[in-house]
């Protein structure tokens, strides 16, 4: 009788029945978030507080916050879901996401902190003409943020719908309201601490899951892998599958993940919340450790789900041939398998916290691009006072939050998988090249950066539209009908960006170009030593 009822709920609305522990923990978390927002709001008085949490975040705290930003629901559920489905391929993806971090440490983190104030556009436009560079950087940031936001909002709506039984639209609106409140009143301080707490909870939860899995396997990886292979009936999961099938796709994906990470505005913003370059450096060290550990956990979780979940009819959607709620629910079902309703409730609440934290960071990054880059520096040409800039930030946040809700509802049933990929491609092709070259290449000029960066951005967008996912599947129902054959455009768009920037810089013989090249040496001193950098004033 019970299962009949449960099944009818599933058929009618695709939603599970109410899970009381989950709802209780969910409410607890909402209450905690609002408390943090209240606490942070009292401490957020200046623009510096709003954008950088006052600049007093320690390296360790920031490392946790950065890891939190990176360990999104998409990676927790998505990567463990990919491992569940394909095994080894999930590890290939994880490694791709991780390798960008050492590069960021070696080449970007300290220099970024030394040169910038609130946004990465501060650094990119340091010695160049403010208006065109900031506009391009802001555009690249907002495009990246919006794409990422849509993907997160749709994912979160569906997740809440499945976990808590709420209707999709309500779920999305709920997330939107919480984001707007959190960011408008609490700024970067609230966002950072929500991110830190969520990171700790997620790491504990995932560790517990992994330990429970391994204890059932007698703490032997061999047993885990053997059982998984037996259940799957093939050992294809132990070796590379078809994820990276040709060298061009392989390199392209690698470039997108590696350089895209270094161009994500909400990640780069975090480097300004610490007191100096040394703390920025420590942030990346800790973040890399946490993220690397997390990817090992998701790998174990994916395999554990094969063994403990895939044969249990309670978790299956027989009609669709997948797990109930989709294969991305592998980790969620696994938490129920090892820890019952209580642990399922905990993981569900953590998943919600994860969504909330990442979307807040994205919204704040978007709002800063609008208020600090576009309004304060382009529109008002630097002649604005802090109070006005703060007001614009808050209105931008509200506007972005509402936009995110509308887009989340509009894209409910669309194929959004390509959006995160496109976000990374744009970050790698427009944001990263300009940022990197402005820090290291003396001969960069405004003209080169603007034309080259725009070309990179346009190429990325164009190639994705003409590619197998949009042109092929979405518009013509068949991936093979695509005009551009590769799923990942980064190899081409990043190359176009660098070549374009190089060519249009060296052919720039104008007077301002000459002055910009001369200004490089002083900029380099500041980037290397921190002399003249924005410091924490307590």
């Amino acid at each position: 009788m019970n299962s009949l009822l449960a099944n009818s709920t599933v058929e009618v609305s695709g939603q599970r029945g109410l899970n009381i522990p989950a709802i209780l923990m969910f409410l607890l978390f909402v209450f905690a978030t609002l408390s943090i927002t209240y606490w942070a709001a009292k401490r957020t008085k200046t623009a510096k507080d709003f954008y950088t949490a006052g600049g007093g975040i320690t390296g360790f705290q920031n490392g946790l916050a950065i890891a939190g930003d990176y360990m999104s629901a998409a990676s927790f559920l998505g990567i463990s879901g990919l491992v569940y489905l394909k095994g080894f391929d999930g590890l290939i993806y994880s490694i791709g996401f991780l390798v960008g971090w050492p590069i960021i440490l070696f080449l970007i983190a300290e220099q970024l902190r030394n040169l910038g104030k609130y946004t990465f556009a501060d650094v990119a436009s340091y010695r160049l003409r403010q208006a065109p560079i900031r506009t391009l950087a802001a555009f690249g940031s907002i495009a990246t943020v919006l794409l990422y936001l849509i993907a997160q909002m749709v994912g979160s709506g569906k997740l809440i719908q499945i976990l808590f039984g709420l209707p999709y639209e309500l779920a999305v609106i709920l997330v939107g309201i919480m984001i707007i409140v959190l960011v408008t009143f609490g700024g970067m301080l609230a966002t950072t601490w929500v991110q830190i707490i969520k990171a700790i909870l997620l790491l504990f939860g995932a560790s517990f899951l992994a330990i429970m899995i391994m204890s059932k396997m007698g703490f032997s990886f061999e047993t885990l892998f053997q059982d998984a292979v037996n259940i799957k009936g093939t050992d294809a999961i132990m070796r590379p599958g078809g994820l990276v099938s040709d060298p061009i796709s392989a390199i392209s994906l690698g470039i997108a993940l590696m350089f895209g990470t270094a161009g994500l505005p909400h990640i780069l913003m975090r480097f300004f919340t610490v007191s100096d370059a040394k703390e920025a450096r420590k942030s990346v060290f800790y973040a890399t450790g946490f993220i690397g550990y997390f990817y090992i956990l998701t790998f174990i979780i994916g395999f554990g789900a094969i063994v403990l979940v895939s044969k249990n009819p309670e978790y299956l959607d027989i009609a669709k041939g997948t797990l109930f709620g989709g294969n991305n629910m592998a980790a969620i079902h696994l938490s129920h398998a090892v820890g019952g309703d209580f642990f399922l409730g905990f993981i569900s609440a953590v998943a919600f916290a994860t969504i909330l934290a990442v979307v807040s960071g994205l919204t704040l990054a978007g709002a800063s691009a609008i208020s600090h880059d576009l309004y304060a520096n382009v529109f008002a040409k630097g002649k604005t006072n802090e109070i006005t800039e703060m007001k614009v930030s808050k209105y931008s946040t509200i506007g972005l939050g509402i936009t995110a809700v509308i887009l989340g509802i509009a894209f409910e049933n669309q194929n959004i998988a390509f959006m995160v990929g496109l976000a990374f491609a744009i970050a790698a092709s427009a944001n990263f090249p300009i940022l990197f070259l402005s820090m290291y290449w003396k001969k960069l000029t405004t003209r080169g950066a603007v034309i080259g960066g725009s070309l990179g951005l346009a190429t990325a967008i164009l190639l994705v539209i003409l590619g197998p996912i949009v042109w092929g599947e979405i518009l013509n129902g068949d991936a093979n009908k695509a005009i551009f054959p590769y799923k990942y455009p980064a190899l081409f768009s990043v190359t176009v960006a660098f070549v374009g920037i190089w060519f249009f810089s060296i052919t720039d013989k104008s007077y301002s170009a000459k002055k910009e090249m001369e200004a490089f040496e002083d900029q380099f001193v500041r980037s290397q030593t921190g002399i003249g950098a924005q410091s924490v004033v307590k």
Partner: protein
Amino acid sequence: MNKEIYEKVRNNPKYIELVKRRSSFAWKLSLLILGVYYAFIMTIAFSPDILGKTIGNSVTTIGMPIGFIIILLCFILTGIYTRKATNEFDKLTDEIKDDIRFDT
């Protein structure tokens, strides 16, 4: 910031030393991780069977520990750079700043 100060720093041999040491170290480490990662990727693209070889009688393939080692390597390299930066580069930077302070 004062242009004169930047000019003094640029002419300070300690600054030249700092830039040289940090650049060479940073680029070496970058090339190392890039090399390892792209070797991994190319192996997957061209000869995935190498990674699919099992270890002895077990079902575990060598791709697994290799993957784990790469993850560990990322963390270790960030640790190596952080330690060198704290011990050497920060010291040089502080001396450069002291030179400015006591120069005028």
